[in-house]
């Protein structure tokens, strides 16, 4: 975080906390959306206690003059609508002496996380101020206050609030009055820092979560059938897609469990409709048998797996990169399949779209490994990258000679007939089979089909999108998924020219491409492997597939906190200065 005693800062981090029902998330959401309208970039993360509804909550809003890649480590502003159970968030809300704490209620004892930090505390008794305004809400006043503090034009905040009226059943007059009270209260707070204004000619920006982006990517790629079972933190993909699928001629079905959801998706895809399911670790585990079926029967299918802390129910609301082993190695038998990982919130769109394209083209299941921090963070970003890739399923529409569903072709991909096509009948089978699809346990058939299923993935040209590679230094940093943002930011600070560090954020995790990887890593003398896992799953995966030998060192920390950018910067500093 760049906070200095004077001058304008390019980035500001604001935590808003309060007890259940105080409207914390509304403040965060409206503040971010107002700032977005005004031209800033930013993001908002949500945190809450274990209560299903009504527990204490925290909204972490970060604003910046340029797109943000990673969560902050220190907060510039903490605003508490009230102080009930705020200590719950102590490990997430780091404050220091440059921080400013705004208390929305007076006469309370501040928790240690505040008093120990040395932060300056401003007692703005929003509650008391609102006593005079019947029905006035503290959170709306807080929005006015924060909007004023960051320098967001008042009319923009007003308009953003106005758009919420019907959704939140707010009284317009009272709400505007509460907002105005907050704006005036801002004069009671002295900010040590000031946020630099946004660039005047800001390009097109989007406000989107990773889960929404994944849903949109799927629709763009032609997914028209989804069957799924609700699970945190993947459910928003489903709730976003369901009404929209109906508007584009598709359908989402809530299945009775994940065993059903993956098999329904397999059925729909077999009949010709691109299909997807979304889940998180526990659900992916349940799906693993049928993923094997999709491999053997060669059915295109996408599973978006939004990772959370594990094992078992683990920490369902927090991020971790620990389903990698399951996604890559979790299938029984020799079962080549695709595993892809988006490396940023907007990239959830592109990568999911690519996953559908690849699954359709290669007739195999693709697992997209997103995670809670990508999926549930609302980001104000540049317009997500559009895809120009056209990869479609090879469908045989007219059968002229004896049809062989699993014909041994050069590419390994065999044209597929769809039910309804005369003379194209075959039985899709998880049993090993002949090229015609007849069950067989003969060694020749097993060899041929194993080789074919492997070859179609191995020989395919995935182009440059298998990884995002920047810089060409002798120090290589390799990472994947949401950690990519934190690493990118740290690397750009330590090595702005990009001549000391070579950063590789891997998007295509399976099939592994040892030759391409080896080339990308040429002349690298040291390799740092960064990930969010206790067991260093990614490091072990890389060592298993590639020649990393003694050059590689693991930088691996479990959730629920994001990877520390300070620790990472220190590490890179140490490596780049020796």
């Amino acid at each position, binding site marked *: 975080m760049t906070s200095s005693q004077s001058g304008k800062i390019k980035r500001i981090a604001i935590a808003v906390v309060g007890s259940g029902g105080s409207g914390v998330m509304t403040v965060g959401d409206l503040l971010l959306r107002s700032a977005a309208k005004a031209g800033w970039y930013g993001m908002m993360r949500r945190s809450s206690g274990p209560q299903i509804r009504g527990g204490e909550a925290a909204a972490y809003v970060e604003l910046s003059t340029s797109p943000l890649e990673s969560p902050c480590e220190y907060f510039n502003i903490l605003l508490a609508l009230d102080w009930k159970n705020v200590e719950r968030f102590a490990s997430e809300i780091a404050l220091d002496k440059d921080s400013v704490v705004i208390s929305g209620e007076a006469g309370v004892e501040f928790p240690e996380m505040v008093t120990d930090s040395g932060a300056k505390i401003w007692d703005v008794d929003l509650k008391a101020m609102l006593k005079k305004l019947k029905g006035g809400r503290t959170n709306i006043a807080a929005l006015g206050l924060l909007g004023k503090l960051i320098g967001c034009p008042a009319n923009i905040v007003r308009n953003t609030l106005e758009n919420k009226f019907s959704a939140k059943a707010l009284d317009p007059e009272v709400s505007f009055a509460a907002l105005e009270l907050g704006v005036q209260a801002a004069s009671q707070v002295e900010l040590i820092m000031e946020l630099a204004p946004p660039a005047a000619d800001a390009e097109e920006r989007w406000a989107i979560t990773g889960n*929404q982006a994944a849903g949109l990517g799927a629709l763009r790629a032609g997914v028209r059938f989804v069957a799924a079972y609700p699970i945190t933190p993947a459910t928003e993909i489903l709730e976003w897609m369901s009404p929209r699928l109906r*508007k584009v001629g598709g*359908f989402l079905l809530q299945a009775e469990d994940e065993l059903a959801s993956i098999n329904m998706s397999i*059925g729909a895809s077999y009949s010709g409709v691109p299909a997807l399911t979304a889940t998180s670790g526990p659900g992916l585990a349940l799906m693993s048998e049928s993923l094997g079926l999709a491999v053997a029967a060669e059915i295109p299918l996408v599973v978006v797996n939004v990772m959370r802390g594990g094992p078992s129910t683990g920490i369902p609301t927090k991020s971790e990169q620990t389903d990698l082993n399951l996604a890559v190695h979790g299938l029984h038998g020799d079962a080549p399949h695709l595993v892809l990982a988006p490396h940023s919130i907007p990239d959830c769109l592109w990568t999911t779209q690519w996953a559908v394209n690849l699954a359709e083209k290669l007739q195999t299941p693709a697992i997209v490994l997103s995670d809670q921090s990508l999926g549930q963070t609302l980001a104000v970003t540049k317009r997500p990258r559009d895809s120009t890739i056209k990869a479609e399923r090879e469908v045989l529409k007219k059968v002229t000679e004896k049809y062989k569903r699993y014909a041994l072709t050069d590419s390994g991909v065999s044209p597929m007939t769809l*039910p309804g096509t005369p003379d194209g*009948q075959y*039985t*899709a089978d998880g049993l090993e089979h002949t090229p015609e699809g007849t069950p067989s346990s003969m060694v020749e058939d097993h060899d041929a089909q194993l080789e074919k299923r492997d070859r179609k993935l191995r020989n395919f040209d995935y182009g440059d999108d298998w990884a995002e590679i920047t810089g060409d230094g002798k120090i290589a940093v390799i990472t994947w998924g949401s950690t990519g943002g934190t690493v990118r930011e740290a690397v750009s600070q330590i090595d702005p020219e990009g001549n000391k560090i070579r950063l590789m954020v891997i998007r295509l995790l399976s099939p592994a491409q040892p030759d391409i990887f080896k080339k990308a890593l040429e002349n690298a003398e040291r390799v740092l492997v960064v990930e969010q896992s206790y067991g260093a799953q990614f490091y072990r995966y890389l060592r298993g597939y590639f020649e990393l030998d003694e050059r590689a060192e693991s930088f691996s920390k479990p959730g629920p906190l994001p990877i520390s950018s300070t620790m990472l910067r220190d590490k890179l500093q140490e490596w780049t200065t020796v």
Partner: protein
Amino acid sequence: MNNILVPPTIPVNTFIPKDYKSSIKPVWCPGCGDHTVLMGFTKAMAKLGLNPEDAVVVSGIGCSSRIPAYTKCYGFHGVHGRSLPIAAGIKLAHPELSVLVFSGDGDGYSIGGNHFLHACRRNINLTYVVMDNQVYGMTKGQPSPTTEPDWDNGMAPGGTNLRPFQPLVIALAAGANFIARGFSGDSNGTADLIAEAVTHPGFSFVEILSPCVTFRPEQRAWKDMVRSAPVKTTFDRGQAARHLATDDGFYTGVLFRDTRPAFEPPKAKTQVEVSDFNQEFIV
């Protein structure tokens, strides 16, 4: 027939049962009931006059579940217990296809039991045929949910001592739209039931008693035990339940029909382009 719901079937083409039978030789033991279920299926299809390519035969895993490859229709031989979800996906994505699901008592009532309940209540237009031999045939003779409590076997010596699962009662309670029982030895009867089930809208459940002559040779006696139910098909769930109270498991025929329309995926009134969704996100 006491049913006004079933439209008269006018075969578009004329087919004979053989038109639905593939050249692959079944793996089943000689005398296995499944042979005649297959025969019943082909006769039903000829009766319905459906083009082989317009029907999909879906199954799970078990001796009984080997059936798809023996037909000339499109087929899906999936994993153990998941035939109903596969079939639901196919039917929802392509409602114009006729989708028939074949399962065993282990596949359908044990590992796939949850899907059975939800398929009944969801009422998608599917035909679900369970070939019940009261044993796990494929894994060589373990007790299934429908096995008698005192049947001695290697897994539970002396018998499981468990109350058998009652498929028709469960289907009725869970909301199936059509419930029938047949006997594999009567392939014409099986054909009639399957044809009626295919024509009936919604989720149709047909339980076919299909002896496993290898692990339950005593089931050869079933041919003398089965008989037509002495009651007529009812449209009333309560009455169907009362009929089942006196059922010894060997009455055949159509027990129950409901008039609920089949589940169909809802569509939004106004259709849009995917690119229209961009507007939601542009700041």
